[in-house]
């Protein structure tokens, strides 16, 4: 039983510890390393495109991680590191696109669509209200209705 248990525990635990950032890349300073991790999570891997470089195993992603750490060691701020990489790979490398004229549509569409949907919804609700407030029947009409109901009840078809 023991013979089976040990490999089983390893099999379950090993994948959990698997990550792209390898020990030899990490910085000795835990504060800088933490900042490097934060930056890497906002940078897109240019090979696997929908993955950040922090979790990507691609060669270029590893090079970029090393570059991020190198810049941090040279005293760059987080923004400076981002700008350095953006200058080489363009806006595309940022997982969060910047807000500027060419991205107005990207950022604005969800808001605009929400507003349109709200307007439509409001319109429909209001129309429903208006319909329920029908003008009341006149006295003559009331009498007509009463007569009709009486006739129906007594079974007289006329």
């Amino acid at each position, binding site marked *: 039983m023991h013979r089976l248990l040990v490999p089983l525990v390893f099999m379950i635990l090993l994948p959990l510890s698997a990550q792209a950032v390898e020990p030899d890349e990490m910085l000795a300073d835990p504060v800088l390393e933490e900042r490097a991790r934060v930056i890497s999570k906002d940078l897109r891997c*240019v*090979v696997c*495109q929908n993955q950040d470089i922090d979790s990507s195993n691609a*060669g*270029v992603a590893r*090079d*970029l991680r090393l*570059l991020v750490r190198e810049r941090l060691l040279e005293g760059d701020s987080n923004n400076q590191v981002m700008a350095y990489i953006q*200058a*080489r*790979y*363009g806006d*595309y490398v940022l997982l969060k696109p910047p807000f500027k004229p060419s991205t107005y549509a990207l950022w604005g569409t969800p808001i605009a669509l929400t507003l349109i949907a709200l307007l439509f919804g409001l319109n429909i609700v209001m129309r429903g209200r208006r319909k329920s407030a029908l003008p009341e029947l006149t006295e003559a009409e009331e009498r007509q209705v009463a007569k009709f109901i009486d006739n129906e009840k007594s079974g007289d078809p006329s």
Partner: protein
Amino acid sequence: MKRILAFAPLVIAVIFGGFFLWGLNPNRDPSEIPSVLIEQPAPEFELAAVEGLETPGLSRADLTGHDRPIVLNVFASWCVPCRAEHTVLTNLVERDGIRLFGINYKDKPKDAVRWLANLGNPYERIGSDLNGRIGIEWGISGVPESFIIGTDGTVLFRYVGPVVGDEAIAKFREALTQAGALEERNS
């Protein structure tokens, strides 16, 4: 107002239809990343020669001052598509007189020397980018990649992936012609 609203479904259908048509275009490559280098000056760099190779190393200054735009190709011996592309590049150099420069990307010098000895060496100069740092300066996402660089050092065109197959070659030749590196031929 109501009449105008009656056209709303049609307008929406046209907008979505247009979007789908654009999305279905087989020539559109959704994974294409626009290069920031186009129309920009080439990055500064200086690379030593590949160890054991007679071809000299490469720096930014070597790319400028030629009478025609030149081609910079990023390659590696471990990259299989590069092998296929090698023939195309050799043809461009030998038949069309294109001037070709190379960056040997993250390659063991020994392997690169053997690779070039086997296939031939069409490169005028080759810089050895052992750690891939200059590759990042060029914003590459992998090998091979090819750039067309104007006489003043401006990056004119970037091709990601191997220039292999009729379509890719035609596209690359067209870019070369537009850049003025290739004479237009009527054949």
